[in-house]
């Protein structure tokens, strides 16, 4: 039954997506131009950034390409629950869903599924452009471990997204979680540059963010062919984030839903 419901949400969002004819093409063009932009920025740096990138092969372009590709997961995990919830409020479909026997905490997870599938496709496009257009070599020797890291990253990022959705449920707009987390992740998570160039105190903070571990593990595996023992710490850290954040996020969501039901503001936006 869980899979049937998950499939129903994915199908619904897929049908909505393809009803916008040009969006898919524009997305592909956007990925290509974004990759091209960073390719030229990498040319500008030349080998100057190499000392900071020794662990990842020394070249800036593959480093940043993986950063921006996988940070889309972060964006989806962080933003989708809140934006989808708001969309359902605006469409008037939230109450129609909550009147069904499907649990609200399940609904908030189902709402994100399509976007994760779509952003996985985007990541694939980034990697394909990197390989076919710019000749980057990616090491795919341990696909299972890569999938485990992606799964744990999704759980961690989604948890933060669900917490962000709690603010939408209660306050409707003016959501601070999304802004604070995405800004700090961009600044401190190592998307565009390695965290080793940050001052010491900021490096400490960056170690409190799941994206730091996700990107370090993925870059290590895809660019330097790291083994399980070399990314063990990152995987365990991501597992820790997921185990703590996910139940906490679901609990907070149930509480915020109860608050909205008490306030009578479930369908307000």
């Amino acid at each position, binding site marked *: 039954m869980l899979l*049937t419901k998950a499939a129903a949400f994915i199908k619904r969002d897929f049908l909505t997506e393809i*009803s916008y004819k040009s969006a898919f093409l524009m997305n592909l063009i956007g990925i290509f131009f974004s990759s091209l932009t960073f390719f030229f920025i990498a040319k500008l740096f030349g080998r100057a950034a190499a000392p900071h990138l020794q662990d990842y092969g020394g070249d800036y372009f593959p480093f940043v390409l993986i950063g921006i590709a996988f940070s889309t997961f972060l964006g989806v995990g962080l933003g989708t629950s809140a934006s989808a919830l708001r969309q359902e409020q605006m*469409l008037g479909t939230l109450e129609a869903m909550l009147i069904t*026997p499907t649990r609200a905490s399940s609904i908030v997870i189902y709402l994100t599924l399509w976007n994760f599938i779509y952003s996985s496709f985007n990541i694939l496009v980034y990697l394909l452009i990197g390989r076919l257009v710019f000749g980057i070599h990616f090491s795919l020797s341990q696909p299972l471990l890569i999938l485990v890291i992606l799964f744990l990253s999704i759980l961690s990022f989604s948890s933060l997204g669900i917490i962000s959705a709690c603010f939408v449920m209660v*306050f409707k707009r003016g959501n601070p979680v999304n802004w604070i987390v995405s800004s700090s992740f961009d600044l401190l998570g190592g998307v565009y540059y390695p965290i080793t160039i940050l001052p010491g105190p900021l490096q400490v903070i960056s170690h409190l963010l799941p994206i730091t571990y996700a990107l370090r593990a993925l870059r290590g595996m895809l660019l330097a062919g790291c083994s399980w023992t070399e990314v063990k710490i990152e995987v365990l850290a991501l597992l820790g984030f997921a185990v703590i954040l996910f139940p906490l996020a679901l609990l907070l969501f149930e509480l915020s839903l109860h608050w909205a039901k008490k306030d*009578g503001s479930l369908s307000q936006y």
Partner: protein
Amino acid sequence: MTEACVIETKDLTKYFTISANLIDLLPRVFRKKPVVKAVEGVDITIERGEVFGLLGPNGAGKTTLIKMLCTLIVPTRGKGFVNGSDIVKQGEAVRKSIGLVTGEERSFYWRLTGKQNLRFFASLYNLKTEDVKRKIGNLVELLDMGEYIDMRFDEYSTGMKQHLAVARSLLRDTQVLFMDEPTKSLDYHSAAQLRRFIRERIVGQERRTVFFTTHILKEAEDFADRIAVMDRGCVKAVGTVPELKRRIKNPEASIEDIFRYFT
């Protein structure tokens, strides 16, 4: 709650604070907020197979009451039971046994067809895949939706939207059907057709219970077995139309007279 009783409320009450903002997160002692009494001390009992009409002017508290019974709003105090389940403590059990139709034109996905919308909601209602097609086929035939079920929802007229909302509420064979102003935006013929369908099919053949709200006096009189008149959050009177006439001591009274008397 007796065997025949499907819906029961005791002192069901809902107060709303005027606005929601950060101050609301503070403990109650730090805030003083004006309160609106949306529903106050409602006691009603509705039996199986009954069409119960909640009649009241705009802002009377009808929608708040129906939303409390559907577990979409938590009461401030009092008790409510639907099909024997407590609306606060057993929300999931309540939701399994009810369907809801609102007069709200939204509540569907505009870029999907009517059928795609029904399939999506059927999956949330835990319907088995093999049953979904048959069930939707039956509803399309019953509600005469064949001509437009494969059209996108954003191309639907108001009447079509309302029929789709009714179809969604009937995807499962639930004992109780809540309808919040179901004919609000329908023309005379569509409204009459919908009422006939509910009376003959839903109640007559299937013996389901229908709880509907309306501000249209004639609709309440013609359609409901019993009426509750609600005004400013309170249920002022409950009974059949003849009972209400006796209560105001005027056997010749029209529904308008009854309504004026109690509101």
